[in-house]
């Protein structure tokens, strides 16, 4: 005798429900209930009319287990056709990741580290920063994390680059049309708040775990949000008076975009790039769950086999990497700001 029997009886839906007596047991609670016999239920024990509770009274109503299973079946059913579309589209990502990983690991350290220092100088124009970069990579190499550090760096470079490549145009589209903005914002909100593990699951179904694009996509989905948002914001914040002046002197929309809006939004766009890089770094650790190489693997090893020292040291390595990535992009941002004041 289930709680909602009367409900279906009075509505005359008994026939539609089918013979409910002796319906399949669905949960541990049911089994316990059976074992304990029919205790007197009071009003206080009335369950919420959930799928499971209603199923007890009426077989025609599905259990919540059917719902999750249905979702899974549905996904598996479209998986193959989805793969036909997504697979070739994302294949370049796999190649880019493989090639960059190969390159950064093949170039010997005595060329790689000076090159990174050179890039730092080109971007930041600060000898102090170059010294910091040398120190951090020197330290990481000294404790034999060089290989892992380069892997992590390679993944971040590729993913952040693709984030900017896709994110800036999306942000521009959002800034030019309120409708695009309205439809994009919920998607961005979702990407930002969905726990990263959750979208790892469908990705695992979609691609094989050996493919680099699996973690590449996960990182890009997670890290693209700030650059999109801040590009949109930056362009919308450009002084209306200046836009009016551009109009008054006869600029076309394209000229306005490239000669006025993007240059003036650049500080905001760069702040977005900085955030995007930091978020890719955060995700690279989680992505090692799905075979992403790099420092995350060491963190994972620390957790799995309780190697405290390895876990702590690789954690420190990630922090150091985060610090220099942040400082270098901020230095670039400061230079842009200084030129515009």
């Amino acid at each position, binding site marked *: 005798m289930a709680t909602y029997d009367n409900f279906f009886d009075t509505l005359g839906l008994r026939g539609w429900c089918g013979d409910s007596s002796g319906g399949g047991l669905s949960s541990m609670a049911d089994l316990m209930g059976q074992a304990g016999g029919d205790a007197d239920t009071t009003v206080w024990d009335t369950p919420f009319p959930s799928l499971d509770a209603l199923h007890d009274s009426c077989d025609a109503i599905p259990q919540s287990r059917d719902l999750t299973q249905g979702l899974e079946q549905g996904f598996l059913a479209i998986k193959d056709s989805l793969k036909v579309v997504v697979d070739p589209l994302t294949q370049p990502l796999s190649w880019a990741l493989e090639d960059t990983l190969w390159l950064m690991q093949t170039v010997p350290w005595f060329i790689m580290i000076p090159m990174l220092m050179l890039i730092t100088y080109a971007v930041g124009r600060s000898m102090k920063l170059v010294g910091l970069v040398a120190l951090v990579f020197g330290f990481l190499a000294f404790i034999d994390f060089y290989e892992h550090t380069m892997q992590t760096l390679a993944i971040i470079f590729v993913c952040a680059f693709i984030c900017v490549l896709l994110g800036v145009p999306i942000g521009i589209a959002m800034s030019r049309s309120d409708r695009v903005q309205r439809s994009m914002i919920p998607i961005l909100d979702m990407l930002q708040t969905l726990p990263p593990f959750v979208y790892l699951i469908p990705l695992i179904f979609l691609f094989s775990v050996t493919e680099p694009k699996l973690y590449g996509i996960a990182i890009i989905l997670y890290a693209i949000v700030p650059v999109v948002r801040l590009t949109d914001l930056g362009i919308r914040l450009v002084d209306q008076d200046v836009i009016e002046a551009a109009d*008054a002197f006869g600029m076309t929309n394209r000229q306005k975009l490239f000669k006025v809006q993007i240059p003036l939004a650049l500080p905001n766009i760069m702040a977005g790039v900085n955030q995007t890089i930091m978020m890719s770094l955060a995700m690279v650790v989680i992505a090692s769950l799905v075979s992403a190489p790099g420092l995350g693997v060491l963190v994972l090893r620390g957790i799995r086999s309780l190697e405290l020292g390895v876990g702590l040291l690789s954690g420190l390595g990630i922090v150091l990497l985060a610090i220099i990535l942040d400082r270098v992009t901020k230095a670039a941002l400061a230079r842009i700001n200084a030129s515009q004041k």
Partner: protein
Amino acid sequence: MTDDIKICVRNLYKIFGDDPQGALEKVRGGMSKADLQAETGHVLGLNNINVDMPAGKTTVIMGLSGSGKSTLIRHLNRLIDPTAGEVILNGENILDYNERRLREMRKHEMSMVFQKFALLPHRTVLENAGLSWEIEGKNRKKYAAEATKWLNRVGLEGQGEQYPAQLSGGMQQRVGIARALTSNSDVMLMDEAFSALDPLIRTDMQDLLIELQAELHKTVIFITHDLDEALKLADHLVILKDGFIVQQGEPQHILLNPNDPYIEAFVSDINRARVLRVRSVMEKTDVMPADIAGEVDYDDTLESIIAVSEGDTTNNYRVMREGKQVGVLHMRDLVRALVPRHPGEAA
């Protein structure tokens, strides 16, 4: 007047709101701005504007904030499109222009100077001044000479490589003016161009504009809320209130014959002796008066005559223009002109 008319505004209406055409019918039916807003929520920006702007002269559009003057100037280059009416430039209705032709017009025939300067902060002064050339696709080498010439003309020698943020407000607006001049357009729209500057610099800039005008004879449309500035610069003065034209004409004439209490209130505060000129108060005659105390010029201000006469109100002066007598100035008329007409008299 026999002047050529450069820009001609005909029956221009602008109504802000969801259904401007519907509201337009009501305005044409005689509904007032306040009633329209209360009844339909539409804002009447401009109400039946008709102005002829003479070529090579300065037309000043004056009004308090909210009078629609900035809206009006933006109709002249179609930064704002009207609800109804025509804007005729060199005989062509610019409202018939397509987007391409409109951009051509903005590049070659009209330039604009803004209240908040609106310079591009990421470009040097020289690159800002050469903006209209760059929009044409010409590179820095091509416009550098022209831009430098105009920067020098407005008093910015050697500042070409600075960034706008490194300059003071007055200097930034000089860049704004140089940018407008470098485009070599006939018409210059100036939207409260000097309002954001402090008083001394503002006077400098007004003198600069007068100097440039004497040399270049551009058609300048100048917006201001400052009557002193308007009287100093205007060849043709248009006074706006709540979106319609209260009075327009020669500034001296408006000052002496205000046709509306609103304008009387406006003109009562200004230094009339400095603004009014001999030609506006003299008696037109070529008969030589019997007792003349001296000769004065047609364009002298009354202030300078008072100084010459040392306060003697019985004197008569011979008014000369290019060596010929054009009239006689009686000091008695001069003194009378210094006192604004009593509001009761105007009606």
